[in-house]
């Protein structure tokens, strides 16, 4: 079952176990410089608002209505990270424009063990981008679909899907109950650090931005742990922020700060490591993508604004046993 509650996707499997719940929300964040330097994790600046796609049928392409799912507004070149919370282990596939963000392969609903094309929560608290190398990701950055920047267009040559696709598989009940008997397990519940014309709506996709230090962890539970008969999916359509008000009648907050402004204000960046878990090696397909900055140069466009390098001096270290950080406003 999938519900939308306070801008969070709540995946639950009550027929499996009363604890089988996983929350996913999408955090606004600043765009890290796209300069091939490696950056720590940026903050969360609040959840992106989400609306049911079916609530706005007359203002959207008909195929969006067929997809179902939800709508999410992004400013062009704004960045996003995905926050996972809940204690019940789940295997989750994430794709952008139907390109898997972990393996770089085309979307399928099924879990693939080798190479692992999913992440596991609660071991994995967040996903900030495409898994390009062991310990490195390229940040999810919004770009218009059709301009050639998105991961989808670079790998398929087509601008067909856009948005984000998610499927969640819960752990089998018997595995969960066995695990609960003997082992401690982590609950990353809300381990989320927030410091704080009518023409057709512009379809947006996600493209690879700057490089960030983040590990995507191997599945420690084993492929047999996942209940492949129970799954729940969601298509997240990304709408240009200019058109959000036209489509939904609602306003959105202003665009997030630049990396330079944020860093100069002395606000913290973050590192997260779990030395008990093994990181995935990264996808060579995804590593071969041009970042937004590189693509901009190749296409002969004007260089990106607000892309100056920063040197974060305040970096907070987090780990799996870090206490919950309270949401704040920035």
């Amino acid at each position, binding site marked *: 079952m999938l519900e939308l509650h306070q801008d969070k996707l709540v995946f639950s499997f009550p027929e499996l176990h009363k604890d089988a719940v996983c929350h996913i929300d999408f955090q606004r964040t600043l765009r890290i410089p796209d300069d091939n330097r490696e950056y720590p994790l940026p903050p969360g600046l609040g959840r992106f608002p989400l609306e049911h796609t079916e609530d706005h049928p007359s203002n959207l392409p008909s195929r969006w209505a067929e997809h179902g799912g939800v709508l999410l507004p992004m400013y062009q070149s704004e960045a996003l990270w995905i926050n996972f919370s809940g204690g019940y282990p789940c295997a989750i596939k994430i794709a952008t424009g139907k390109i898997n963000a972990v393996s770089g392969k085309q979307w399928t609903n099924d879990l693939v063990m080798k190479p692992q094309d999913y992440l596991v929560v609660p071991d994995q608290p967040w996903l900030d981008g495409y898994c390009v190398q062991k310990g490195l990701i390229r940040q999810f950055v919004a770009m218009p679909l059709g301009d050639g920047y998105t991961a989808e267009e670079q790998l398929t040559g087509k601008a067909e899907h856009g948005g984000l696709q998610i499927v969640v598989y819960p752990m089998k009940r018997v595995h969960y109950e066995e695990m609960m008997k003997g082992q401690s397990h982590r609950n990353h519940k809300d381990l989320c650090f927030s410091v704080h014309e009518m023409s057709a709506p512009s379809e947006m996709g996600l493209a690879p931005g700057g490089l960030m230090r983040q590990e995507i962890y191997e599945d420690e539970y084993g492929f047999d742990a996942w209940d492949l008969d129970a799954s729940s*999916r969601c298509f997240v359509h990304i709408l240009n922020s200019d058109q959000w008000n036209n489509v939904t009648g609602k306003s959105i907050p202003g665009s997030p700060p630049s990396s330079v402004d944020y860093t100069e204000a002395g606000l913290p960046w973050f590192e997260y490591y779990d030395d008990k878990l093994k990181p995935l090696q990264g996808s060579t397909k995804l590593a071969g993508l041009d970042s937004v900055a590189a693509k901009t140069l190749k296409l002969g466009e004007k260089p990106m604004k607000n892309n100056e390098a920063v040197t974060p001096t305040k970096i907070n270290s987090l780990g799996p046993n870090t206490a919950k950080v309270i949401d704040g406003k920035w």
Partner: protein
Amino acid sequence: MKTFGNHIRQAREALRKEDKSFSLRQVAARINVEPAYLSKIERNVFPPPSEEVILKLANELGLDGDVLLAMAGKLSSELQQVILERPKLFADLLREMKSAPDHAILRVVREVKDGNW
């Protein structure tokens, strides 16, 4: 079953034990009614007052406005408006949920649709 008058009187007198400003006279003054009128409501001599006065009383006495209105046999004008905007839908929903246990009512949820993609 407790009457409206008894309920507000008990609530007021419980507060007055801790705080003398909850005397009949002072509460009546704060909600802009005559003390005699409030006394007659508490003693069930008069029927419950208007929605506006009931909500002021609820606020004064720390009671839930919707519950107090319901005890007075009323529905807030806000909820009436909600129902009047889609009367058939809400009437059907309420009839269907009439006998449902509390936990089922609290779990009336709206699922995110998953379509063809």
